[in-house]
């Protein structure tokens, strides 16, 4: 694989990788560095890329695993993660175009506090629009686990909205 082929096949996933890293690390700079490291690592494994059946799932899995390694690393411990969470609570959302109303910020906060698997499943399904099967493959979870995590994540968001679903 040459750099042009890499640019055309792998780089289109860079924003998806970034959003996933940001969802896990809560810090924009850390997430950006991680995506850069992940892409360089992918380039160095270019010989293996041709054999990969589902490149998108592989790239997402690799990003998730690198994030988890980073979170477990002493240098990026719980203190840093909580710091990132506080920053996410206080600061306006990363993109200037994003509406930073209280509701939006609170939804951001609720999602950031969901358990890891619920957060990841909701990110891939409700933000990235992936199928249950694709989510299961990318996160290496059984299909049933994907559905349970998604159900719980959505219920948490619904509880926050605290309005009972009106009956027709």
């Amino acid at each position: 694989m040459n750099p042009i082929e890499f640019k055309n096949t792998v780089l289109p996933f860079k924003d998806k990788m970034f959003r996933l890293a940001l969802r896990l690390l809560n810090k924009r700079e850390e997430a950006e560095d991680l995506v850069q490291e992940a892409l360089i690592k992918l380039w160095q494994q270019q010989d293996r890329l041709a054999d990969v059946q589902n490149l998108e799932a592989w790239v997402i899995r690799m990003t998730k695993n690198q994030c988890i390694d980073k979170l477990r690393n002493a240098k990026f411990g719980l203190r840093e993660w909580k710091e990132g969470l506080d920053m996410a609570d206080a600061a306006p959302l990363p993109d200037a175009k994003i509406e930073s109303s209280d509701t939006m910020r609170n939804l951001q906060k609720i999602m950031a506090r969901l358990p890891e698997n619920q957060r990841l499943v909701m990110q891939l399904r409700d933000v990235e629009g992936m199928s249950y099967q694709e989510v299961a493959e990318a996160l290496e979870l059984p299909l049933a686990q994907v559905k349970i995590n998604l159900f719980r994540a959505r219920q948490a968001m619904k509880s926050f909205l605290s309005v009972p679903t009106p009956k027709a």
Partner: protein
Amino acid sequence: MKQTQIQSLLDKYFAGESSLQEEAQLRQLLQEENVPEAFKTYQNLFKFLDQELEIGLDGDFETRIMREIEQQHVEAQPKIRRLQVSWILRIAAVFALVTAGLWWMLTSNSIEKPIVAEAETKVIDWSKYEPKTPEEAYQITRKAFHRVANGLNEGTEIASEGLGKMEEMGKVFN
């Protein structure tokens, strides 16, 4: 009608049983202006999810990463070429040595072996063999006669030995 449809889709969504198509339809319905008041709160949830999709890396990220990859690609190239050239040279050197050795062996053998000596060690195909000089023809003929004479002498001796044994046997029977 519309309210019933939204309600049904929301129920499926929160139960985690909706398909991607149904979720797209729900987003579409909630984006419309005349959404019933009761559902407006859910508009925020889908607006939030849509806005999350707009988050992305800076515009120059791709340029930076491609510069790094191009650099690594270029650095990897000369190593491969150097390796290939060194292996080609090694193989060529071994081939040259083997060829030179074989040539030396073949040429040295043919110089040292005289034709007459060859005539002594090999069975000559007389129908094809042609001596190049009269001396060579004389030598070959002489050797041939010598060999025939030796053969005849050996035959005579064997025959006389056989006759002697027969005479002794005759004496025993008589």
